[in-house]
């Protein structure tokens, strides 16, 4: 049943993305100043929002794991970090492509871009840590600690527009923007959200499966019963 729901979600996400692409590439008007380059915003902004959402989920799961040692928290943390990296990398690349015709440069060291890049490297470190620690329980604890500390970066990204002078776009409220653009952006945001949920859910299942394999003791050794770790943590 859950399998059907997941597949349905994927189909929904793909359909929404297709419509969103049509909205973004054709239906929405060109911007008064940015022209057609504005259309990149319809994929860049939702991508960055999904990345931040995923990182927030990672933060919550990291805290959750430290409070209650459940493998579900750990797997969900792993899934959300990886998916967050995906959306973040895509978003950063798109932002750079957008910057070239509008600001004239591929990259600039303004606070928002800088912290976004830092965030990506920080979570790359998180994923590297997960790969370099063999013991599942220690890995879960240390990853949780690392995830919490890395997340402290996230508010810096979101509020840096207000805190420092920055050439990044001031977040425009929908009232001041063409309604067609608002709709296009909103639609694409929900499309990316649907896809993101599908990715995280699927990656979570992969992680849980890996945990089961790791914790299953070889039959020749005295072992904990299937489905429990040696210390009795339920899978």
């Amino acid at each position, binding site marked *: 049943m859950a399998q059907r729901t997941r597949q349905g979600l994927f189909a929904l996400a793909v359909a929404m993305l297709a419509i969103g692409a049509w909205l973004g590439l054709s239906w929405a008007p060109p911007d008064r100043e940015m022209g057609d380059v504005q259309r990149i915003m319809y994929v860049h902004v939702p991508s960055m929002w999904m990345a931040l959402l995923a990182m927030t989920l990672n933060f919550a799961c990291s805290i959750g794991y430290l409070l209650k040692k459940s493998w579900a928290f750990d797997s969900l943390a792993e899934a959300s970090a990886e998916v967050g990296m995906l959306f973040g990398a895509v978003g950063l690349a798109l932002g750079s492509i957008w910057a070239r015709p509008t600001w004239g440069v591929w990259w600039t060291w303004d606070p928002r871009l800088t912290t976004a890049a830092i965030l990506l490297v920080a979570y790359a*470190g998180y994923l590297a*840590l997960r790969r370099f*620690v063999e013991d599942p329980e220690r890995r879960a604890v*240390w990853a949780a*600690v690392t995830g919490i*500390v890395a997340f402290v*970066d996230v508010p810096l990204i979101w509020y840096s527009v207000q805190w420092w002078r920055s050439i990044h776009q001031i977040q425009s409220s929908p009232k001041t923007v063409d309604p067609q653009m608002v709709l296009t952006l909103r639609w694409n945001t929900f499309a990316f959200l649907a896809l993101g949920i599908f990715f995280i859910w699927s990656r979570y299942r992969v992680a849980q499966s890996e945990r089961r394999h790791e914790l299953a003791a070889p039959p020749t050794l005295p072992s904990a019963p299937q489905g429990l770790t040696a210390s009795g943590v339920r899978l």
Partner: protein
Amino acid sequence: MNARHPPGLLEGAFLILRKDLLIEWHTRARLNALLFFALATLLIFSFALGPDTKLLEQNAGGYLWLAILFASLMALGESFRVERENASLDGLRLLPVNPRAVFLGKALGNAAILFGLSLVLIPVMVGLFGVSLALGLGSLGLILVLGCLAISAPGTLYSAIASNARARDVLLPLLLFPLIIPALLAAVKATSLVFQGDPMSQLNSWLLLLGGFNLTYWGLGVALFPQVIEE
């Protein structure tokens, strides 16, 4: 302290701090290596970036903190080596010492080593890069203290993690560097202001930023360290 009264948080921290600093002092070879590494880094910067003294002087703050940061990797990487090689972390765990005290002691020890290092580097900066202390030694001292504390807190936390993982020499900088960049930025900007003067009174904002980072990182370290070394 006697067996009936386990040391409190601060007392425990002080004991760990004293132990670590004593070990460092007795094996001075390592401290010397650290110092020469930092000096060599500064020398390399001056060679690599050319003889244009104006440029060197302008960017001196950056070079100083880069040298401290690279040296910190050595210092932090070693921070738990003694415990790992002698399995004495188990001993520490068995003792009625609060794990938070272990963190405080170790992190303060690392900060102290880095601060000592940076003090030695200042006259070298003056000689090699021709900088002058426009805002005085007090301001510089404060920036050095705050910066070394800011590196040491997350560095000690991550060192405890990395020293038990594979590829520990790669993992520590990979984990630490992205996190430390904003604090590093604040320290470099503040140091440059000290070297070159502060006509627009920006120093206080950078110091506040450094202070804020320290509060955050030390708080997180104290909160999370017990989980990190728990068996």
